[in-house]
């Protein structure tokens, strides 16, 4: 068990700054996901926590102590990688026992721990088989079990599920959650898949270009993104983000999109944009779930005409790709009977509209600390 503190951690590779002044406080027993696109620096960050990579500047503390002088093997950290590092020339049993044998535990204790872990991973019946005979799914299960059996105080997982097929991935997600529940380890989980991050972690650190964009509980990050990047990255299907000029047409405030269409703005968003004095441009964010087909159902909701472009089935839902001028607007509305090519009226929920700065993508809020608006 251990807390981890990153203070202004920076890593440069030549001219490239992979991780830039990153601050992060990972509490004891937390399950934290490092989430971001390929090349954002999430794996580099994890490697520095592990001690595989040195820091250019900044410091990492474990329970308040610096570990820079401590050898990797003495840090008591468990790893699981994307390409399950298991010994294919050894039996499943030997793979599970390896970490314990290295630590010179008594044979009886090793046996007890290996069997308990095999039971947990439901691979008891395969203990004596060669690890090479396992399926891809079982190999990853074994890789996780092999790390967990040594009961590390920190567990680091680098995209451990990305090689697995969809069904097994969902199953392993649940399994990992149970594992963390029962051991109470501090877990750091690297992924580019926001669904994985949302469903597994207590807290998500969203990283872009080596910088921390937001750190918080999954639903807080989803409901109340601090900036445009987070708004776009978290949530599936992703949030609509419309760039335009802020204008007044008669009594109505609108966002004039690049090719001239007028997107009407609810009052809450107008108030949020007003917070940035003198701004002529703005970015409007709306989740597809907050757009419905038909005229406005509430006073503050706003309506616009759009053409149905593509209809996608996303799981049990139907996602409409709508065209407003040249802009794509995604909406989820199951009740609607629409066809591609049709021109329809859609409305946006006022409570679902978020405002972002056009200059730096910062979230603009109507009231300080207000959850939405």
């Amino acid at each position: 068990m251990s807390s981890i503190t990153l203070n202004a951690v920076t890593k440069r590779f030549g001219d490239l700054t992979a991780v830039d002044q990153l601050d992060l406080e990972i509490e004891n027993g937390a399950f934290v996901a490092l989430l971001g696109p390929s090349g954002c620096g999430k794996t580099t960050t994890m490697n520095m926590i592990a001690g595989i990579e040195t820091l250019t500047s900044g410091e990492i503390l474990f329970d308040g102590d610096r570990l820079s002088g401590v050898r990797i093997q003495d840090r008591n950290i468990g790893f699981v990688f994307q390409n399950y590092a298991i010994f294919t020339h050894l039996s499943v049993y030997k793979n599970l026992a390896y970490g314990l044998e290295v630590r010179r535990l008594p044979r009886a204790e090793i046996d007890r721990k290996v069997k308990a872990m095999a039971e947990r991973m439901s691979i008891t019946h395969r203990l004596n088989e060669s690890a090479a005979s396992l399926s891809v799914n079982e190999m990853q299960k074994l890789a996780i079990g092999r790390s967990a059996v040594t009961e590390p105080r920190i567990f680091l997982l680098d995209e451990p599920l990305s090689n697995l097929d969809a069904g097994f991935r969902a199953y392993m997600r649940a399994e990992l959650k149970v594992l963390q529940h029962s051991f109470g380890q501090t877990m750091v989980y690297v992924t580019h898949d926001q669904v994985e991050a949302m469903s597994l972690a207590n807290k998500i650190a969203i990283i872009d270009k080596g910088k921390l964009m937001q750190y918080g509980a999954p639903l807080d990050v989803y409901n109340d993104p601090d900036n445009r990047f987070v708004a776009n990255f978290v949530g599936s299907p992703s949030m609509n983000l419309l760039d335009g000029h802020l204008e007044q047409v008669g009594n109505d405030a609108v966002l004039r999109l690049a090719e001239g269409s007028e997107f009407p703005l609810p009052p809450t968003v107008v108030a949020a944009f007003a917070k940035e004095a003198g701004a002529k441009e703005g970015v409007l964010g709306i989740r597809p779930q907050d757009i419905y087909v038909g005229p406005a159902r509430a006073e503050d909701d706003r309506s616009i005409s759009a053409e149905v472009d593509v209809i996608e089935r996303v799981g049990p839902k139907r996602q409409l790709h709508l065209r407003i001028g040249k802009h794509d607007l995604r909406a989820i509305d199951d009740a609607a009977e629409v066809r591609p090519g049709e021109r329809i009226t859609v409305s946006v929920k006022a409570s679902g509209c978020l405002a972002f700065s056009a200059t730096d993508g910062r979230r603009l809020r109507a009231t300080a600390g207000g959850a939405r608006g």
Partner: protein
Amino acid sequence: MAEIRLEGLTKRFPSFTLGPIDLTIHDNEFFGIFGPPSSGKTSILRAMLGLLNPDEGNILINGEDVSGVSVDRRNLAMVFQNLALFPHMTGRENITFPLTEAGLPTSEVDSRLDRVAEVLHVAHILHKQPGQMSGGERQRIALGRAFVREPQAFLLDEPIAALDARLREEMRVELKRLQRENDHTFVYVSHDEEEVLSISDRVAILLDGRVAQVGPPDEIYDRPISLAVAQLVGSPPINVFSCELIDGGSKVKLVECDLTLPAPPQLAGQKNISCGVRPEHLLIDAGQTEAIKGTVVATEPLGGFTIIDASVGGKLFKLRLTGQPKIAEDEVLSVVPDPEQLHFFGEEGQRL
């Protein structure tokens, strides 16, 4: 543009037999092939392309048997998962490679390149090498190399599987738009059911080398032909309960959750019935006395929806609720299935 027809296509491998497969892919169709790993998806594409000689059966392109026709004369383009771009060539050279190889005149190569660059929005990256491009850009260059040949049809083998989750969502709509705007025939293979179902006009579900069901995505999702298809399509997967007919067959009891429902007529005389209910068709209704009393084991709040794991009689089942309901672990929920959305399957797994 082309219609592709498979008639009794069979290929025997040492430990696996593909087929016999009968399929017709219509002209200008976005046709998806979906199945679990090693169900034979890629082999079908390879047979169409001519890289795999079937043991039996015929492949017809626009009504013409192509059995003896070599790969380069079938005029089909394939896009692979690992893209297979030349790392030392620029985007432009990668795209035009098939044309320069075929010895087309420079003017023709240039005009085709211009057209492809406009359709795929790659004009700004043509001078870069693959190593300098993002995953999505490399993907578009690989598509460009297929497009520039102006083939009769495109065969795509998990073309976006290697991309980040977010980019995949964007690319798949892009592919659909391309196919529709240019009236192409696409045969699209993937092991990601959401991806295939979201963009295909029709989908073939492949199980153990055989076609289990063919139809539009809605039909496959809403009326799966067998238990196996029902379990393959949908995430989280469909809940399956075992059933018993009671009261002389007028009622059906879902055994694990001790819920009795009126039995539809088609259940009469059936044995070992199972009932499938999709997670989004289990509704919370505190007012119902006849309900599944499920204890919440875990919750997965995903923002737009929430997945609840609950247990009843030692069996785990899942609910998919819209929005962000406040539900705590260990809470006991009264759950009723939407009576319109029950799937019954017989002893052999066939839909009843």
